[in-house]
């Protein structure tokens, strides 16, 4: 915080966080409304197929009618903040705001798309490698895929975002990387008297504790990597990379598992090979936490409607559904 009398004060971490929470709330309401409209026009299936795109559209709509137009968002209004440039001397230029909105929304979305595509490629590559090693008795390990290194790069990006959050907790300047990149800083738009200044200072101090906790978490997470790195330093003729150890034993199978064929998953008895939801032989059988088995698609579609097992009504979160292999 600065002492200049004619320039507005920069906002502190708690206030920025509060504005963000409010914005997220409003965005989720907006997205919900969009979903309702889309359900009437395009049907439930469309919503189930494109949840991310709909959320993205909601955010885009919200930011383009607020930040892009140079208006305050509801969260900023709520906490009485407005966006200024890096030095706090002027408003942010329109093209910077546009670049911010685009990178803020499309960046993570595109990255997740690319990393998903890469994961798929990796699975394919592993399958091909397995086949090759089955065909020839030798184990060809000469060509390493670049995929691994690229996916590590994505992990690295994630870590950078975490580090940036850490920085935010300590300094309270930019909440996310995109804002730092394009210089969108928050300032308080009313004059502060001394008592309010005191309260704000105390609040931002307590946010440092969060920063310490986060840095501890990062350190603990990083420990195994340091260990692996240390090991490679000692036995450098036989390098061990963590990723290889974990992925080597996992067999990837991307093919459709159709229980019509009695040879597939023979441990499932004849009378329970049909899915009770679609009444045909199961395709990609999947297990709810309670143990009941359905087709993957049938169960997922129902759990999007209501998160419970169709047979016994036990809670069945989407992420708890296990595909059987």
């Amino acid at each position: 915080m600065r002492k200049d009398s004619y320039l507005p004060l920069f906002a502190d971490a708690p206030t920025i966080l509060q504005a963000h929470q409010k914005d997220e709330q409003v965005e989720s309401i907006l997205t919900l409304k969009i979903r309702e409209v889309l359900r009437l026009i395009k049907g439930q299936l469309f919503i189930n197929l494109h949840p991310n795109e709909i959320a993205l559209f909601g955010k885009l709509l919200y930011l383009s009618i607020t930040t892009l137009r140079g208006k305050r968002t509801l969260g900023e209004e709520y906490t009485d903040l407005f966006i200024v440039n890096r030095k706090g001397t002027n408003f942010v230029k329109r093209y910077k705001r546009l670049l911010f909105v685009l990178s803020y929304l499309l960046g993570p979305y595109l990255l997740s798309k690319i990393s998903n595509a890469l994961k798929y490629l990796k699975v394919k590559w592993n399958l091909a490698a397995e086949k090759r090693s089955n065909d020839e008795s030798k184990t060809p390990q000469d060509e390493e895929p670049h995929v691994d290194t690229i996916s590590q790069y994505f992990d690295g990006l994630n870590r950078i975002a975490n580090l940036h959050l850490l920085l935010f907790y300590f300094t309270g300047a930019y909440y996310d990387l995109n804002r730092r990149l394009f210089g969108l800083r928050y300032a308080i738009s009313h004059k502060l008297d001394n008592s309010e200044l005191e309260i704000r200072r105390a609040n931002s101090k307590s946010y440092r504790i969060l920063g310490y906790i986060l840095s501890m978490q990062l350190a603990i997470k990083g420990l195994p990597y340091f260990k692996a790195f240390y090991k490679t330093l000692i036995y450098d003729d036989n390098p061990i990379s963590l990723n290889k150890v974990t992925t080597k034993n996992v067999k990837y199978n991307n093919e459709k598992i159709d229980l019509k064929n009695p040879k597939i998953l023979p441990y499932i008895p004849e009378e329970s090979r049909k899915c009770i939801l679609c009444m045909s032989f199961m395709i990609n059988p999947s297990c709810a936490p309670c143990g009941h088995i359905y087709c993957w698609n049938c169960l997922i579609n129902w759990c999007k409607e209501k998160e419970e097992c169709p047979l016994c009504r036990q809670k069945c979160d989407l992420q708890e559904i296990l595909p059987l292999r």
Partner: protein
Amino acid sequence: MSRIIKEYNHIRKLNALPDNMTTLHPVSNATSDLSNWHSIILGPKDSPYHNKSFLLEIHIPTEYPSIPPVIKFNKNSIPPHCNVNFTTGEICLNILKNENWSPVWNLLYSVQAIIQLLAYPDPSSPLNIDLSRLLTLKDSKAYNSLIKYYLYNFPKPELICDCEI
């Protein structure tokens, strides 16, 4: 929609059986449209509806089986019942509501549940206030007599099966 075709094949087999209690068939004869069904149900034994038959109109929504089928009584064959709206034929049955439905149930179960409902009315969520009052007062004699009085002119099972719907 593929599931309703499977159910249709199963129901057709059941209909062919000689001791079949409920008849269930699509309204149009062409198998391409399975969204509207008719069902003739017989009043269960030991209930005032015994020896009477009723016609159900069933609509299968496109999202079925994620959402339940819409079932009501035909306008000309509405039984007096505490969970049935006597003018519209609407049925209040908890498992046919969106929040209680489970995709495990099928069309046949739903119809059987309605037959059950005839025998075991639930006065806690009534659509026919007069009958539910009689039930909450535990005046079963008045309840049964009133239903029998209303049903006096209703067709017997063999009659409604013969006539054209």
